[in-house]
């Protein structure tokens, strides 16, 4: 037993851990996302590495207490470098029977279950489809169960508050947060600051939330049921200034940064769609940075208005998710044909059709590559972590304006809403994004809209309003150089080849694929997008055990870096975990005639590192003598 200098922890254990996985689960209205977010911010400020995974239903408010209404937030923090929000939670906070039912089977064996016992009446159990009370049927025997009546405790704490009962009950998530803050010895100040700021106009609400938060902390400290508090030391991180960032946020900042560096005005045309809407929201708050946002009447107007903006000399951007991508296909083809820069953000979700809007997937790769009529090549990039989305957004702008080409950025729900600490870049060190507009023409000189840069094959970007450059472009095939309508067979072949070559030329402009580990070996694990985290953690484990395993992650999906084929050939086997039915694996097999093995998972949930690890171990047993 340890004793704290202040005496506060007398008779309580204080144990050091190197990492903890916590999952908050409750009704959609229980404030689980906010609770998780607060724990995350506080923990980030305390210097731990952290990764988060919000998992919520598409319904805004499903009926209270039911299984479809359960919303969860998982976070993992540590004293070392981590790559995923963890697989099985060490601690589950379950706010009602439905949350318990949905998540209990995933808790680590011997893990802690903090169970709100306020709503375990027969009707509550029925809503959660429990035949028997799980607290008494033995099903929780292997867990360390801590039963707490959050509602009663919250009401007790607020007996002097002028708020009505419903409002009081709404702050019970703060009681749970207070308990966790004690258990993991977190600083309450950042949360206190946030609550005070957020409800500045409602002092009673501020007072109630703070009272309940502190009551939760004190309760855990004082009562016998909580025997142990845990410490997780800060993680060693590269020096610099950090903030916690979600994928959608980072993507927006990357675009704004590139806009500022290039001197281009950003124009976002967008139609609300889960899980991409936050991009529209965030860019709408950057008006002071000169960002124009246009909430269009539909997905098609969103992309075509962006094309119009690009045509007029701004950088047109459109943000969407899979179903919206399908609607934008024809317009993206127009941007290919008109050879205009355009950035298309696809925050992928589980499909097809409406699918599962709040669940993650990577099944829009082939759609991004080929989902248009005709030979219609575009550049395709993928963000792999929330912070990586900044660099990918930036790179998308750079390539779009340099090559006069549409660039699709693939993110996914897991990256969009997940968060991690982000080492802020020094804006002076960001690469230049040079933009050249065609110069005013001289009288008597005819402007050639499809005359090309010999190196990149990009055509000139001629802004309407510039004297002497009037010209016509469109979706009809045109003669190279002059841009006049042309149905000549040889010209069409030439233009198809030229548009393809222009995209292929980007290969000369991107870094080679650098593996994590040796450039040759027994097994290469290839990834793209958000599988990076679980692949990294499983490959690092195997490398530490002495296996000849490497990992590599593709940011540029079209074109690929030049050395992809060489790298793949350096390994006995190549395994590619993807949250689709093997789309990149198929492309790589077709291109390199290498037996890239797909490891597919398409259930709307990200890979657990454990399942990748198990799969790789099996493969290694077959390879290694």
């Amino acid at each position: 037993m340890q004793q704290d200098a202040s005496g506060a922890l007398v008779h309580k254990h204080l144990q050091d851990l190197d990492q903890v996985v916590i999952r908050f689960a409750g009704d959609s209205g229980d404030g689980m996302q906010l609770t998780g977010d607060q724990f995350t911010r506080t923990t980030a400020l305390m210097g731990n590495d952290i990764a988060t995974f919000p998992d919520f239903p598409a319904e805004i408010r499903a009926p209270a207490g039911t299984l479809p209404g359960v919303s969860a937030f998982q976070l993992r923090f540590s004293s070392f470098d981590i790559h995923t929000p963890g697989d099985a939670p060490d601690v589950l906070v379950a706010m009602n029977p439905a949350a318990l039912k949905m998540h209990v089977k995933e808790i680590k064996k011997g893990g802690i279950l903090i169970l709100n016992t306020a709503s375990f009446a027969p009707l509550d159990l029925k809503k959660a489809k429990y035949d028997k009370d799980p607290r008494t049927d033995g099903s929780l025997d292997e867990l360390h169960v801590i039963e707490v009546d959050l509602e009663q405790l919250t009401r007790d704490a607020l007996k002097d508050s002028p708020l009505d009962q419903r409002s009081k009950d709404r702050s019970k998530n703060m009681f749970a947060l207070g308990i966790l803050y004690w258990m993991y010895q977190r600083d309450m100040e950042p949360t206190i600051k946030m609550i005070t700021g957020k409800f500045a106009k409602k002092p009673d609400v501020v007072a109630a939330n703070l009272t309940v938060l502190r009551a939760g902390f004190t309760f855990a400290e004082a009562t016998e049921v909580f025997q142990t508090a845990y410490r997780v030391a800060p993680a060693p991180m590269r020096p610099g200034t950090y903030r916690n960032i979600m994928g959608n946020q980072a993507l927006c900042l990357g675009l704004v940064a590139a806009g500022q560096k290039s001197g281009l005005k950003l124009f976002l045309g967008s139609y609300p769609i889960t899980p991409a809407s936050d991009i529209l929201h965030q860019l709408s708050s950057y008006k002071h940075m000169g960002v124009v946002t246009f909430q269009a009447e539909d997905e098609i107007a969103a992309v075509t208005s962006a094309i119009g903006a690009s045509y007029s000399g701004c950088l047109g951007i459109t943000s969407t998710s899979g179903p919206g991508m399908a609607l934008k296909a024809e317009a993206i083809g127009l941007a290919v044909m008109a050879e205009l820069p355009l950035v298309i953000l696809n925050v992928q979700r589980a499909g097809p059709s409406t699918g599962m809007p709040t669940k993650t997937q990577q099944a829009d790769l082939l759609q991004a590559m080929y989902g248009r009529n005709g030979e219609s090549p575009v550049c395709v990039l993928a963000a792999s972590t929330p912070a990586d989305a900044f660099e990918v957004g930036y790179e998308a702008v750079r390539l779009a304006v340099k090559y006069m080409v549409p660039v699709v950025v693939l993110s996914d729900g897991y990256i969009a809403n997940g968060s991690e600490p982000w080492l802020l870049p020094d804006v002076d060190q960001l690469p230049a994004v040079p933009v050249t507009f065609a110069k005013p023409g001289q009288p008597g000189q005819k402007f050639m809209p499809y005359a090309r840069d010999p190196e990149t094959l990009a055509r000139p970007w001629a802004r309407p309003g510039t004297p002497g450059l009037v010209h016509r472009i469109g979706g009809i095939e045109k003669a190279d150089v002059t841009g006049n309508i042309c149905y000549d067979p040889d010209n069409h072949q030439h233009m198809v080849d030229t548009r393809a070559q222009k995209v292929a030329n980007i290969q000369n402009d991107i870094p080679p694929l650098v593996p994590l580990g040796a450039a040759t070996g027994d097994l290469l694990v290839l990834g793209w997008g958000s599988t990076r985290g679980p692949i990294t953690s499983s490959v690092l484990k195997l490398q530490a055990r002495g296996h000849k395993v490497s990992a590599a992650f593709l940011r540029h999906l079209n074109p690929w870096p030049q050395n992809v084929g060489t790298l793949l050939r350096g390994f006995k086997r190549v395994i590619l975990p993807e949250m689709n039915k093997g789309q990149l694996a198929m492309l790589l097999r077709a291109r390199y005639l290498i037996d890239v093995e797909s490891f597919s998972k398409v259930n709307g949930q990200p890979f657990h590192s454990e399942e990748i690890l198990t799969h790789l171990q099996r493969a290694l047993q077959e390879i290694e003598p």
Partner: protein
Amino acid sequence: MTTAERPPLSKKDYKTDQEVRWCPGCGDYAILNAVQGAFARLQKQLHETVIISGIGCSSRFPYYMETYGFHTIHGRAPAVATGVKVAHPELDVWVVTGDGDAMSIGGNHFIHAMRRNVGLKILMFNNRIYGLTKGQYSPTSEQGKVTKSTPMGSVDYPFVPIALAIGAGASFIARGVDVFGPHLEEVIVKASAHTGTAMVEIYQNCNIFNDGAYDGFTDKDVRTERVLYLEHGKPLLFGSKQDRGIRFDQDFRPQLVSSATGDLGAAYVWDETLDNPAPAMALASMSEADMPVPIGVFRRRVRPAFETLVNAQLEQAKASKQETLQELLLQGETWVVK
């Protein structure tokens, strides 16, 4: 070189070196001529003018105008043009579209551009047929129309584009006719002067697939008796002797008046700036068979344009908050690792 030093632009300065490829006899030639005439009258600068079109016969228009031009995809021209106009409000942006392009596949963009009052001049060529796809009925074709896709006659009820524009809240709505060149040119000049969306429906004859669609009131021998010229501040009179007119009853139903019946003085005095859309709607919805066909300006309302409001917010935001890129990145809670 300033505008003043340049020789004035003539109609032919707006012509391109591209061969015009509409069918001989198509009404589009007359419209092209009227637009070039109006642009020359207004001395529109070539490089400041952008013409954006969708798909269809009419949408070939940009290739024949020596301005900036963008021939986009089916139905989407108003949305592309919205991007251009919002990003660069100083440009003079025109949309050329047809009844299929604007009323059918692009109906959504058409109504929303008008609702927002984007500063676009929309020329909607209405020939009541699909020409480029070789003769299917369009959303403005009359019920019973026999075409390749409706061998037993179309059962669709048609749109009245002017009524649709009124419903969508367009701030300037007018109608012209391909064969009434000087009048059409005048309407285009008025549309050009308008702030916000100007929607001009242009009745256009497709001599291949829907020849004579408008003969009932455009033929030389009937037009003076069948066409009602809307003139702001003047009574609704028509006929060679201006001896017939239109008044509205208490239910806003249009009724004929005439000097013969002695009630010509009751003819309604046209006010295109009226807040109340009812008179314009009543005229737009009149039966073409029984009543004169109104052309000219139906509505002209002063409202700030969309792009003006959008850019005013931008300026307001810039004035109230200055932030460097580095400061923007530093938003929220940050911490320093040494």
